């Protein structure tokens, strides 16, 4: 551990661009997706219509949020039409790239909560309420129960995720107040509070794409010098430890937890390039590799 801020050492060693590569790509993705949606209402260029609940790209490609569609199904509505195809496409996509890629690469609330987390580090705000990270699965279950009991998609009347995205595209109204509440909650009440503890949308996507292919791997974990920078920036820090420190217990280097958002920030901030993007199939435990290497090296 050094006196440097998390990621500073990486910046010194690798240069600013390489130490912010995935962060920048992620911001490009987040703002790019928003821009695609906004081109219509702002510039009259209708490449994408709708919002994250359901959209139509170039009048051909339907994309639908499987979470909201499942809630609709639970209310007793016989879902019909292009939404089914749209949800299938989205599901397949996240099964490849990782469910919570939705959270870190698409969701607009991530911009808000990332800002809160960054401010929390910069202002050195310590202390945080205690809440289980499993809470989100309870909330997820709750949204399903509410849909079933009320016969309406009850969660959508308060969901800050859809409210912010819809607000940006169709008119904000007082949705900003709810987004501000999420921001303040993350900043002062609970570290990584919304995205890491409460949000059922992220919880749903983590379950939807449990067996997803693309994963972050601590491929060079033997190089780790315990600087803790990855833990400092990771929004779901509990996912790192097994992969990074589990070599002795025979745990592979690939982060298999469905709650890893594949944001790639750990790859950026690691000065020693311990992490890289990989697939879940390259999870051979390093001892085997080392043994094989030893055999080759030693005569």
């Amino acid at each position: 551990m050094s006196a440097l801020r998390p990621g500073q050492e990486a910046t010194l060693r690798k240069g600013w661009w390489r130490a912010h590569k995935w962060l920048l790509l992620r911001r490009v993705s987040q703002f790019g997706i928003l821009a695609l949606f906004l081109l219509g209402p702002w510039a009259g260029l209708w490449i994408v219509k709708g919002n994250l609940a359901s959209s139509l790209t170039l009048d051909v490609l339907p994309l639908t949020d499987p979470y909201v569609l499942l809630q609709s199904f639970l209310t007793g509505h016989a879902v019909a039409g292009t939404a089914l195809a749209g949800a299938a496409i989205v599901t397949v996509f996240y099964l490849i790239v990782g469910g919570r890629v939705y959270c870190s690469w698409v969701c607009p609330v991530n911009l808000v909560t990332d800002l809160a987390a960054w401010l929390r580090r910069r202002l050195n705000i310590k202390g945080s309420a205690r809440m289980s990270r499993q809470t989100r699965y309870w909330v997820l279950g709750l949204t399903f129960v509410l849909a079933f009991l009320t016969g309406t998609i009850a969660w959508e009347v308060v969901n800050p995720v859809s409210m912010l995205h819809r607000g940006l595209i169709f008119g904000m109204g007082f949705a900003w107040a709810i987004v501000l509440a999420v921001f303040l909650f993350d900043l002062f009440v609970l570290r990584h509070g919304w995205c890491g503890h409460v949000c059922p949308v992220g919880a749903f996507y983590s379950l939807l794409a449990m067996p997803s292919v693309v994963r972050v791997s601590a491929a060079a974990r033997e190089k780790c010098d315990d600087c803790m920078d990855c833990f400092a920036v990771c929004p779901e820090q509990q996912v790192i430890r097994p992969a990074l420190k589990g070599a002795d217990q025979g745990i592979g280097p690939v982060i298999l937890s469905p709650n890893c958002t594949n944001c790639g920030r750990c790859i950026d901030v690691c000065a020693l390039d311990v992490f890289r993007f990989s697939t879940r199939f390259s999870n051979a435990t390093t001892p085997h590799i080392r043994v094989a290497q030893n055999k080759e090296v030693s005569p």
Partner: protein
Amino acid sequence: MARTPSSKLSRRRFLVDTARTASGVLLFGLGVGLYARRSESLPATAIRPPGAGPERDFLGACIRCGLCVRDCPYDTLRLARPEEPVATGTPFFEARKIPCEMCEDIPCVKACPTGALDKDLTNIDDARMGLAVLIDQENCLNFLGLRCDVCYRVCPLIDKAITLEARHNVRSGKHAIFIPVVHSEACTGCGKCEHACVLDQAAIKVLPDKLAKGELGRHYRVGWKEKQRAGKSLVTPDVEHQYNLPEGVEYDYEGEGLKMKQHDTPFADNPLDTLNRKGGKP
């Protein structure tokens, strides 16, 4: 295996933590659930797009994507904002601001990805978004005896959804009043009449069916309709009534009452006929 103090403690902690999370989420859910139920009460001025089912079904089917709003060529539809009294993110319009123009190809219904707007609606005349009601019969200019007629003229289903019925103007004693009458079997609830009403506050308003319409008890049967449907009277026909009147006298139902039968009258229009009658009275 003996229980060690630490395992006892961790189980206790697990139970307490679980209870803590569960009760917190339950409280949260109670709030969300109650709020969601309250947002089912759509205000009377908010009208759903064509093809939307009953409010509760609609709120289960609509995923708030706004594709209907995007394909509405007249900017009639919009999505409710969180502070509005309509369920957040759902599409609606207010007739007094921008009414539905009843596009023949119904683009909003075509755009809906979930079937919340019923794809079986292919003729916009079959849409039932609400029902126009001439709600203020004291200020409606036509009721005052003037020939405003604007609601009648703008109605896309003129002479079907709104007709003008002539009545006597009792105030002046010599003029007619043309009353706009809405017919529920044709009115789509598009709201053009409400939008066009010249009063500061519209005298004719589109209301949800549940507010606009009464409903007969299910056991009610309207006699003359049943008779028409069956082609005959369904009850024993009345015996034709007979009066015991003196000979040569009949009863006039139109108001004259008792009178002599016409052919038996002793006096003809032409007095000469009487005089020339054979065997006439002296």
